[in-house]
């Protein structure tokens, strides 16, 4: 057995009196693609954001490569965040920078890459997401699908070991969902470890190694896609699937 890259232990998170996550213990192995699905408001996004400490857990532990993030100082947390790329539902590209500058910023300011090195790497990544011809465009001139692909390239520019996707296609027009999922599928094929929160069941079925079904602040089921979609064990999952597959 390989050592898990992410370990979550008894993770809980409350906003005021509202307990969003209640006691989650799971782990992600290197190279695994985890797809987290479940009803809205079940805590999926909060869970994902706890993995790179964008949200500070109320209790419990999140370890990356054996290091417990909840006990580290800010500097070390910043360093470990480099290893965990994140893609957001609303892209969050920097609107005042070109596509190329968006990708180059963190490698230059955090990793200390030279302008030339960062530019070269940015072009490689843009080719990978098929957007090299948009290098000098500003984000506002991009379609949603293009913007999200740039966001993926930007996260990849830090050479992360894990990619976290927070509903990457939810804000997209339907015809653009495919281009983003294709990029994600390619990444999975290359062996990238991924944790994906999504409502794209097709993607979950075909790409995921494990499905984590999350509802009411718990991970209710952890199984293979085949098992999950064919034989959901919990009533909560059965109910959820009956609604979305209709």
């Amino acid at each position, binding site marked *: 057995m390989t050592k898990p890259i992410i370990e979550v232990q008894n993770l809980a998170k409350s906003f005021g009196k509202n307990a969003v996550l209640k006691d989650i213990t799971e782990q992600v192995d290197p190279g695994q693609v985890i797809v987290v699905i479940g009803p809205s408001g079940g805590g999926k996004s909060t869970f994902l954001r706890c993995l790179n400490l964008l949200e500070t857990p109320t209790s419990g532990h999140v370890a990356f490569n054996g290091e417990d993030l909840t006990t580290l100082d800010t500097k070390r947390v910043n360093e470990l965040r480099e290893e965990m790329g994140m893609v957001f539902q609303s892209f969050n590209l920097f*609107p005042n920078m070109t596509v190329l500058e968006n990708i180059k910023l963190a490698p230059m*300011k955090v990793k200390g890459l030279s302008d030339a090195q960062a530019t070269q790497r940015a072009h490689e990544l843009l080719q990978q997401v098929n957007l090299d011809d948009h290098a000098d465009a500003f984000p506002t001139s991009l379609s949603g699908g293009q913007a999200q692909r740039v966001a993926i390239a930007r996260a990849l520019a830090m050479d992360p070991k894990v990619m976290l996707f927070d509903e990457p296609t939810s804000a997209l027009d339907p015809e653009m969902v495919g281009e983003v999922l294709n990029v994600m599928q390619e990444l999975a094929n290359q062996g990238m470890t991924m944790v994906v929160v999504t409502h794209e069941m097709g993607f979950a079925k075909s790409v995921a190694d494990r499905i984590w079904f999350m509802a009411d602040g718990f991970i209710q089921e952890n199984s293979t896609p085949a098992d999950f979609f064919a034989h959901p064990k919990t009533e909560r999952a059965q109910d959820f699937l009956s609604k979305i597959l209709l």
Partner: protein
Amino acid sequence: MPKKLLISIVFILTLLTGWGGSTHFTTANAATDNSLTKIQKKGTLVMGTSPDYPPYEFQATVHGKTKIVGMDVAVGQKIAKDLGVKLKVKSMSFDSLLVALQTGKVDMVISGMNPTPARKKNVDFTHLYYQGGYSIVINKSDKGIYQDKDSFTGKTLGAQTGSTMYTESKKQTSNTKVKGMTSVSDLILALQNHKIAGVAMEKPSAQAYVANNKQLAMIPSHFNLSADDTVAAVAFKKGSTALVNKVNHSVDQIKNQDLVNKTYLPAAGKYLKTNTVNTSMWHYWKAFLTGVEYTLIITVCATFFGFILGVILSLARMLQGNPLKTAIRWLATAYVEFIRGTPMMVQVMFVYFGLGLIVNLPALTSGIIAIALNSGAYVAEYIRGGINSVDAGQTEAARSLGMSSGATMRYVILPQAIKNIWPSLGNEFITLIKDSSIVSIIGVSELIFQSNIVRSDTYRGVAPIAVIMVLYFIMTFTASRILNHFERKMQHD
């Protein structure tokens, strides 16, 4: 010249600096009176005066250079010569003179100042060097209507605010409204526009105005005045007994030999003539240029430092967490509230005179500091608003890439915040171009100050105002064009 120190200024400074410290300071001085040796060691004697009161003191163009001349300057030169030191003349508004003396900005004040009992409490005076009288200046067309102070029943009489004339006009007339203004040039202008019927002022000044303006005439005032009210003496810092005794020799000489009437006043009159030969505004372009130059220096420097201060304050106001951070946030908030809640004019005076007790800052530096401190508070609020206007997702994206909170602020949030608040910042800059005029009260030769000097030099009330109006507009309009250019450059969405 019996203009009086504005009690209010002293009062404010007393409140702000704590008179205790200052009194202690002067007492200590008296105990070891080194006032005379100090000046002799320094080799220069700094004289404070308010050069808008010809023929006592005013600005004249001599060989293409603007300098302060007049009978008071001649008195100052004699005193300096007798002490064996060099005279340096520093100009500022009359109201600021005694504060400048108390705070060590100047060594002595000669500005036709009347040694009233109130003033004597705060400074030391020499013997009298001049005894004049009071007159009332009226429009020539009104000659015959008015004979003296008692002719103004139901009319308005003008006098310089805070001056003895102002107090006495109020006291010694009945059914006459007394209108006070800071500068004599303004009073004359009001007179010519028939806003007021007469202006009470010192006889030599009245003579100068009448001699240089054919539409004016003068009548005796017939004010019932004690000898003390019509005299002028030199003021020194309280406790400078040795220095005052020494200077008294010079002053007595001036008085005994009647130097003022025989030599100083005629010489001043000559300067007045050269001044009024050419009163076209072109002739004074250098004065206006200096004004524009200083206005721009003050504005640009104050904007620059104000912006830096604003960034620091806005970040401090967003600190959260441990008690230290909370304390810093609280302090920054208190600072912003305090600065926004007090007039800029008071802040300027406080920096110049108040801080002057600790470090001797030149007027220009003080002005820039005061305006930067003021502007910083406003800019801080703009920036805070700008930072809050940037979507939280921007911070999350930057942090998820491993950027520290500092780097996130610097590279991602602030550039966007500044773009968002650029119009407000531009507005602040343009406001500062105009508001920098406030530093004229501490004698910085910015545009308003310069225009006042041109006005009193040329006896022309409106033309210089029109000139600076146009100059201010050119500056603000150019600035707003430049700012718009950058705003367009930043537009990507």
